[in-house]
């Protein structure tokens, strides 16, 4: 049993509020990804859970223990630091063995654990080297192996794959996911990379400006963003937002007649993902017209930038779709994929 529970944690650096009442619950054996823009407080939250930073307010629980006042060594966690923090005076082998030596495990277990962690991160051939003789990506893998070797109950990882090339990263992340599922380690994983977040996470916690703005499964975070921020931050290209007038509880979009939620005001934001727009070269019933501004071939599909009533938005179409700048196209959003948001606060209306 090693769930993580963070309750109402606040942290201020000088006069800057880095964490603004963060609450987060990670279930036992769950893989949760913290996703958010640079400087939003991800590392700070991780450090508070690890016990490296003291929260001004709030409590932290690991399993059924209140660890708020415990030092890091008593929390049964392991952490991968954003800047690796491998020990320069120890060989790769001794780096990975460091935590095991502190636990005074038997020599056989120590050797086995070190070799397994090293094999997993593909650094078996580097065990005799010193960190100064490694590349950044290799050092990063030593840092991950060092954390894995101690078989912690809770693993905190701060962008552990950020410095690897795309191919290696893809492979590592699949192996990491398999290993952590097998070892039933509760994991909190920080990343900038939303593809990584989507592929690894049981649940994603999206952070912005020191607060968690949405905490849900990857698909729901993607399809039902809680706010304009989340819809814009996740997805590449991001979600489109069209500002529309509400007349008599109806919204007209070309020949489309849509019903917004009951509590809308005079205007409403309609959120729709680029891939959720069906695109037609000729007029269709239940569609709206837009002019093509830019056509970008991206390989698997074409990315169109279109103009509707002075608002630019994006749509994707198959690569053989006949599209050219200046052309008029008709679009029909998939009705089940529409998201209504409040223009002032940027928050989504509850879907009912």
């Amino acid at each position, binding site marked *: 049993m090693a769930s993580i529970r963070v309750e109402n944690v606040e942290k201020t650096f000088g006069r800057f509020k880095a964490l603004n009442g963060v609450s987060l619950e990670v279930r036992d054996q769950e893989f949760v990804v913290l996703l958010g823009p640079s400087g939003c407080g991800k590392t700070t939250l991780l450090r508070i859970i690890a016990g*490296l930073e003291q929260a001004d307010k709030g409590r932290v629980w690991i399993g059924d223990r209140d660890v708020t006042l415990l030092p890091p*060594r008593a929390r049964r966690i392991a*952490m991968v630091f954003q800047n690796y*923090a491998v020990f320069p005076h120890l060989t790769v082998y001794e780096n990975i063995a460091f935590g095991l030596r*502190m636990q005074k495990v038997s020599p056989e277990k120590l050797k086995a654990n070190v070799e397994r962690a090293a094999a997993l991160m593909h650094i078996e051939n580097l065990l005799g080297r010193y960190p100064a003789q490694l590349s950044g990506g290799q050092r990063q893998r030593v840092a991950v192996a060092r954390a894995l070797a101690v078989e912690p109950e809770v693993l905190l990882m701060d962008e552990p794959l950020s410095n690897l090339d795309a191919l290696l990263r893809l492979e590592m992340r699949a192996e990491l996911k398999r290993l952590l599922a097998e070892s039933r380690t509760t994991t909190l994983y920080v990343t900038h990379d939303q593809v990584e977040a989507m592929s690894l996470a049981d649940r994603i916690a999206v952070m912005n400006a020191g607060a968690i703005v949405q905490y849900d499964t990857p698909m729901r975070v993607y399809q039902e963003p809680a706010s304009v921020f989340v819809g814009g931050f996740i997805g590449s290209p991001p979600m489109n937002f069209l500002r529309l007038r509400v007349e008599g509880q109806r919204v007209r979009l070309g020949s489309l007649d849509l019903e917004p939620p009951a509590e809308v005001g005079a205007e409403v934001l309609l959120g729709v993902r680029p891939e959720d727009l069906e695109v037609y070269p000729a007029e269709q019933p239940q569609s709206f017209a837009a002019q093509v501004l830019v056509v970008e071939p991206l390989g698997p599909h074409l990315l169109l930038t279109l103009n509707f009533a002075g608002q630019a938005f994006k749509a994707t179409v198959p690569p053989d779709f006949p599209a050219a700048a200046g052309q008029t196209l008709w679009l029909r959003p998939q009705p089940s994929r529409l998201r209504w948001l409040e223009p002032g606060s940027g928050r989504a209306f509850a879907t009912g």
Partner: protein
Amino acid sequence: MNLRRLYMVLAVLLVVWVLLPIFLIATLAFSDRPSVFAWPKGLLPQQFSLETISFFFGVEGVWRAIRNSLAVAAMTLVFSVLLGAPAGYALARYRFAGADAYRLLILMTRAFPLAILAIPLAVRFIQLGIYDTLLGVALVHTALALPFAVLVTSSLFLSIPKELEEAAWTLGCNRLQAFLRVVLPLALPGLAATAIFAFVISWNEVFAATLLTLRERTLPAFLLTSLNDSPLPFRFAGGFFLIVPALVFIFVIRRYLFTLWGIASR
């Protein structure tokens, strides 16, 4: 171009200014008696001989003074590192109110002239019963070496990332274990340099050592007090013996002194 030449000339002058006396002392310490007294003195060593040096070591009290000097310097070294390194660590790792003022204060103690302190110090030492003891001299020397020890070690600990210690904590170390297993091995060369520097400061210090001792003279104090009634070869040999350890040690630890003074080390 001209500026550069001027710069070179000044540099050469400075080097000669510093090196010439050392050179003369060194050559004359290894010459025979006649060439020590000769005038004008030749620039190159005359007859090489150990006559002067062996005369020096034959003088009554020299060996004892050397032993005293070694003992005082060793004590200074130990005290400076034991007191200076924790202070340096605190300055490097903790933000506390008045940290900058404290840093400045440490340096200011060096600006305070020892001459003003000397008489009260001697009186107090007599009261405490540590006048004319090696421990008393070592305490004063520690006070002199401590500012350097604190500042050098603080920049030394600053250069060791805090995350390394934090990583050790998450891997099961308490603060002391993390320090011993991670920080200390990385800091060891710098701590050795700090220790050597404290040793040299004590080895060369003459003022306090002269004032605070009567019989338990250190080498510089012994030389200074016996300078007026001793022959020329004795002075050269003694000077040589004072200079050399300092030069050697400073050369060994120059990299750390450069970083202390903010000069890029190479």
